[in-house]
């Protein structure tokens, strides 16, 4: 409770990840999303609603842009003055990128958004006062604010529907910011089990809700520092480095056959989500 406590802990409160003297150990949660496999079906988004007690805001509030989907599936089409989108659309599941140097973390006046030791960008609902600065500074705009008191709203959660709520996930009241947590409740549960058995969480032992539902397996999730994990292998195969703002792929003019990239990488937020470019057949 003293200032000395503040000074002692200061370096702990804000240490930029990853740093050489404090590597991620034993966990660094990360994702890889294959846009060539993603079909834009929205199963992940619904799974996220189901798992994380996300309120359905209704038409009027959606119109005002107050929707709460932690995971949104974006749809793009590049025009080039074509008559038809004859190479199809491009879908992109976008959720909190769990940046290693997250722009949201530094600006929160009350330190409600923090970096955890396993590389998550966590949001402490109890601490949040709702200044919304984090969202203002988020390049991806993936933070969602509780504009209304959804838990008490009869249209959003009638008494019957509240029985579906996941008891492992806090229900957020009005005035707090929320966002994708990488299903931290599942991670925590898995870590407890692993800790009890004196080991780390194995590859495949824990899945995020979106990953679990994805019919094409486009989303892979896991421990980036575990060389056994699929995510680690994917990042390595694509030569994407967590704390870099330029990757092997960007170095050459001609693509070296890699398709891993991170969105708005030049901002040096070091996102923990790698996307794999959508592939289009050149023969047709």
């Amino acid at each position, binding site marked *: *409770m*003293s200032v000395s*406590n*503040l000074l002692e*802990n200061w370096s702990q*409160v*804000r240490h930029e990840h990853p740093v050489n003297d404090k590597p991620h150990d034993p966990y660094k949660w990360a994702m890889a999303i294959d846009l060539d496999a993603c079909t834009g079906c929205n199963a992940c988004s619904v799974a996220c609603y189901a798992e994380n007690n996300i309120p359905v805001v209704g038409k009027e*509030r959606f119109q*005002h*842009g*107050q*929707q*709460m989907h932690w995971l*949104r599936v*974006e749809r793009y089409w590049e025009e080039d003055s074509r008559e038809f989108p004859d190479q199809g659309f491009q879908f992109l599941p*976008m959720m909190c990128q769990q940046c290693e140097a997250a*722009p949201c973390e*530094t*600006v*929160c*006046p*009350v*330190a409600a958004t923090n970096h955890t030791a396993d590389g998550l960008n966590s949001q402490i609902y109890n*601490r*949040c*006062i*709702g*200044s*919304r*600065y984090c*969202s*203002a*500074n988020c*390049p*991806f*705009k993936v*933070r*969602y*604010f*509780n*504009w*209304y*008191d959804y838990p008490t709203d009869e249209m959003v959660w009638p008494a019957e529907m509240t029985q579906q709520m996941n008891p492992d996930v806090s229900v957020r009241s*009005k*005035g*707090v*910011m929320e966002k994708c947590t990488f299903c931290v409740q599942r991670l925590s549960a898995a870590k407890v089990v692993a800790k009890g058995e004196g080991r780390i969480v194995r590859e495949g032992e824990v899945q995020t809700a979106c990953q679990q539902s994805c019919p094409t397996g486009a989303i892979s999730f896991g421990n980036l520092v575990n060389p056994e994990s699929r995510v680690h292998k994917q990042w390595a195969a694509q030569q994407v480095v967590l704390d870099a703002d330029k990757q092997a792929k960007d170095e050459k003019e001609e693509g070296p056959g890699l398709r891993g990239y991170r969105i*708005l990488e030049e*901002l040096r*937020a070091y996102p923990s989500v790698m996307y794999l470019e959508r592939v289009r057949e050149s023969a047709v």
Partner: protein
Amino acid sequence: MKDIREDIAWAKINVDVMKSLENPRKLYWVILFFALMAFGFGVGCEIYQYQTGMGVENVNNPQVWGLYIATFIFWIGMSHSGTLLSAILHLMHADWRKPIYRFAEAMTTFSLMTAGLFVMVHIGRLWQFYYSLPYPNDRGIWPNFQSPLLWDAMAIFTYLSSSVLFLFVGMIPDLAIARDTMAAGWRKKLYTLLALGWEGTDRQWRNFRVTYLTIACFLIPLAVSVHSIVASDFAMSQQPGWHVTSFPPYFVAGALYSGCAAIITLFIILRYVFRFEAYMTKPILKKIVRLTFAIAMVWTYLNAVEFASVWYSHDEVSKDVLIQKMTGTYAPFWWGMIFCGSVVPLVFAFKRFQTNIPVLFAVSLLLNLGMWLERWMIVAPTFSHGYYPWTWDHEQWPSLVAWGLVFASFGWFTLLFMIFCKVFPSVSMYEVKEMVYHRTLHLKKSETAEQGAH
């Protein structure tokens, strides 16, 4: 024309100013009534917003900040001219400031108090506001000292307390006069308490001067830092349109600009309402107008600097935001800002308008409208046209509640200001006396010189 007539008797000064505490014109009560109404409406809006949630402001997920933040910056800006007049001009020995610095300083204090309200109104969980304060607690939890918003809270708090102190200290000799002239009643008790036993002894005057000067010196860097920090809220972020190096001076210039414009407005109102024509004279007004014109040009220049640096920076995203401001949904407001902020002040360049009260009144309101638009144009377009096109939005029109709170802030400010002027001497009696005395000395000197020549 002279800034003030040299032949006003000191006793008359006392009587004239003390009269303002008792019988203002009817317009005073009209203004007070409307201010009260506006404030009352705002209280209703806030109660509704508190109960229902921030959604009633009609802001949304990518566009999380709206009118409240814009108006917050506006009021912070307003506070700067008071310090300019009372502290900077004090140090520069510009004695024409003397009849008007008191109300300007009051304006500083009350606009800061209004700005503070917007912090409260803006945050989602008002009931947890104290989390942002670095209070000692046994959980060892501190606010985040990296956040410009925390700097903001601290800077505003420091600035507000210093301003109150400065206003109060500067008022002590006048409070003593009020104490001595007032008949028995609550006012007399109040003035007795606040005058801190002022007797006007030599030692008291000497201490008073030193104290006043010290606070003035302290206040100037504070004023500059406050608005620089508000600018940092934006400049320290990563967002296009905000991440601009020139923001702090730009904000300070804008602040002085809107503050001066507001002084013109209030000058005209006070002069009429409290019958201060003999003290708040047109020559003084002319000086303020010229000062305002100069600041307006500085502001215009800094605007141009910002646009040019964005334009030549090859930062495509920021450029997009700028183009969007000029051509997109917000274009009418943006061009309104340019018109009100850079074109309208050209009126001040014409001598015949420099003392034309109706024109000045209208122009001063337009300038402040322009400055309010400037703040809105800083906040809103970056949200609606930022890094991530998927979340670009076109429809962010503030709700009735948001507008209600903005208007209420004007009501609240006016209410505080008008009550202050009725309760405390809004023209500094002792400094006007000094001013008259200095002028008389000056006059005598020149008369003597003239006589000597004969």
